[in-house]
């Protein structure tokens, strides 16, 4: 067999798009973590990033079954559409689902009750760490992307967490050539971010290319909302209108999916993958800036939460 690359091969090589390169990179990371760790789990929130992550994981092991379970950290403030979607996805691909409940952490007294309308986003970290300990997971795949936030932009692909689950940005393990070091001792664990290098636009291009199913709230629909701190919050569940907040109907969609109490909708008429793609490619505000009250709170909000064990 000749080693010299033929014209045909060069053409195939050149035809590999940035999405192909990102896809191969992610699959390679997922396989490497599975082979280097005893007991991994994939964090599946039902949001678009974790949908892409799960899709890539399924592809990484096809036609074999996914060799690890998926876990949702349930804040109890979920969009019902997201739960419906989660269950359908899990059923369709025959996955093992673990639900770690923030409410149970509150009931056990592990975390203070933020009240029925308080955000439970930050508390998730405690529930997550408890679940990781209980199930003895040594690695958790997350859909974090470096373009989401300036602290995330600093994160390695394999993020080492100490016995308390914390992140120490000054002590990250170097990853030359993306060679990952999965060695840990008992009680420590790893977070793995296979889609680190994807942007929001890459995610949507890939979702459209692969026709990955998503929760319906990512597409335009009518919803009763109030405006709070410049954000459109869906009325219901933890969101109760306060004085001066007038509920009204708007045509909206969501750019991210999180705790209902702090995830804002954006006005949009995008009903298809292509519509959303067009919208995202002309957006002038980041998805977190537009829709996540919790990250705007302080300049280093994300860094602080990551140090505490957040995703």
């Amino acid at each position, binding site marked *: 067999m000749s080693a010299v690359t033929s014209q045909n091969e060069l053409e195939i*090589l050149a035809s590999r798009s940035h999405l192909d390169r990102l896809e191969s990179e992610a699959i390679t990371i997922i396989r490497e973590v599975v082979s280097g760790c005893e007991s991994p789990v994939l964090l599946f929130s039902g949001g678009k990033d974790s949908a892409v992550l799960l899709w890539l994981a399924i592809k990484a092991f096809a036609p074999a079954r996914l060799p690890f379970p998926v876990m949702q950290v349930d804040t109890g403030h979920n969009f019902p559409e997201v739960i419906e979607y989660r269950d359908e996805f899990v059923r369709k691909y025959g996955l093992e689902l673990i639900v770690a409940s923030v409410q149970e952490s509150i009931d056990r007294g592990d975390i203070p009750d933020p009240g029925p309308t308080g955000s439970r986003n930050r508390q998730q970290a405690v529930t997550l760490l408890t679940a990781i300990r209980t199930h003895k997971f040594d690695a958790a795949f997350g859909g974090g992307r470096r373009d989401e936030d300036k602290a995330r932009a600093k994160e390695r692909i394999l993020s080492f967490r100490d016995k308390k689950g914390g992140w120490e940005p000054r002590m990250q393990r170097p990853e030359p050539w993306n060679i990952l070091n999965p060695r840990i001792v008992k009680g420590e664990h790893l977070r793995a971010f296979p889609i680190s290098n994807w942007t929001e636009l890459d995610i949507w291009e890939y979702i459209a290319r692969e026709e990955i199913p998503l929760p319906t709230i990512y597409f335009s629909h009518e919803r009763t909302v109030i405006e709070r701190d410049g954000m459109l919050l869906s009325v219901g569940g933890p969101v109760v209108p306060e004085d001066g907040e007038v509920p009204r109907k708007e045509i909206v969609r969501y750019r991210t999916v999180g705790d209902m109490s702090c995830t804002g909708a954006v006005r949009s008429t995008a009903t298809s993958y292509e519509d959303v793609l067009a919208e995202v490619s002309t957006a002038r505000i980041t998805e977190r800036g537009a829709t996540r009250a919790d990250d705007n709170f302080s300049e280093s909000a994300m860094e602080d939460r990551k140090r505490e064990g957040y995703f």
Partner: protein
Amino acid sequence: MSAVSTASNTQVRIATIGSVDDGKSTLIGRLLHDSKGIFEDQLSAVSKASRRYGDGTFNLALLTDGLRAEREQGITIDVAYRYFATPKRSFVLADTPGHAQFTRNMVTGASVSDIAIVLVDARHGVVEQTRRHVSIAALLGVSHLVLAVNKMDLVNWDETVFDTVVTDVAAIVSTLGSSVPIHPIPICATDGENVVDAGDKTPWYEGPSVLELLETLDITPAATIEARLAVQWTLREHGGSDYRGYAGRLEGGAIRVGDMVTVHPHGYSSTVAGLTRAGSPTDIAVPGDAIAIELADDLDVGKGNVIVVDGTHQPVDATGLIADVCWFTDTELNVGDALVVRHASGEVSARVAAITHRLDLETLENTPTDRLILNDIGRVELALSSPLVVDEYTVNRAGGSAIAIDPVTNATIGALMIRSGC
């Protein structure tokens, strides 16, 4: 619609390197800003932070210096990754730290880059850290070095200053014996001269801007060896089917169904019976693809094995390595030390059999030594507890690279470029 046209873009990975304060973070901020890669809320957050951490003038470096400690100290500690796309290409930018103590993070950023942009402050010219970073980039084998001579505004846009820096960097590269092409550009990162658009302050410079270069440099790797696949995992279907796929990322060359292969280290021969790429069947795969190979014969193959298409360039089943190492930790490396070496074909224990020389960054000459200290680049010989299937780094980066791990703390303490195996 622009969104659709980007779908067939190639992706280019870039690292900024160079000494502290030469303008790496500012250049990246400028590229993102001028190519409209920044969102409005990020801009307003940077304005706010500029008031808090600086003299109030808009500080582009704060776009990448995102950790609290970095902002307080005005330095880059760890690599920040940023992304932007033009109609021609999409870019992954790694902004690396200039301080010697964070060299490990610079190596991480530069090791996977196609292009390195070396920043040099025109006032100071080439300094030790420039030599260190250029040497590392050359050793790592980036395809191109863009030499951005920055802060030209502070030297009156003087062409002779520019020429001196260009001559000095070219001398480093040739002393190292590297043939990486150098593309020099005079710039001012703060006002954007020659960054995205050509400016009017350097009439004596007729070349492209930084962005024009990044959009056009050829980064297609020249594949000259047979395809190889280090097996990461064996895929087995449950129930009925006897499917067995050996999963991994393809390196070196293309592979086709029907190709004759050899499995290293034991040397079994077989034929490729089937291929999948990203989970779907295919007849051919090319380097970089995440694939799975089915073999015609029922063999004992798994993690640790490398499947290689038959031909003239076979990897070596090595229990001894000669390698150049970038040493990342405060603890000295001495002859006799125990290490863990992690490579695509496995993780093995190793003992340092010899340390032959280190690179003197003043003279760029190899000087004999028996130990390596933090940030040294030196040559070592390692004895391995069991074989790794290796290539020379210059022939195949994936098969020729490895990391050294401290067996006690589990920290990653060195980056290894394999020169030969035996």
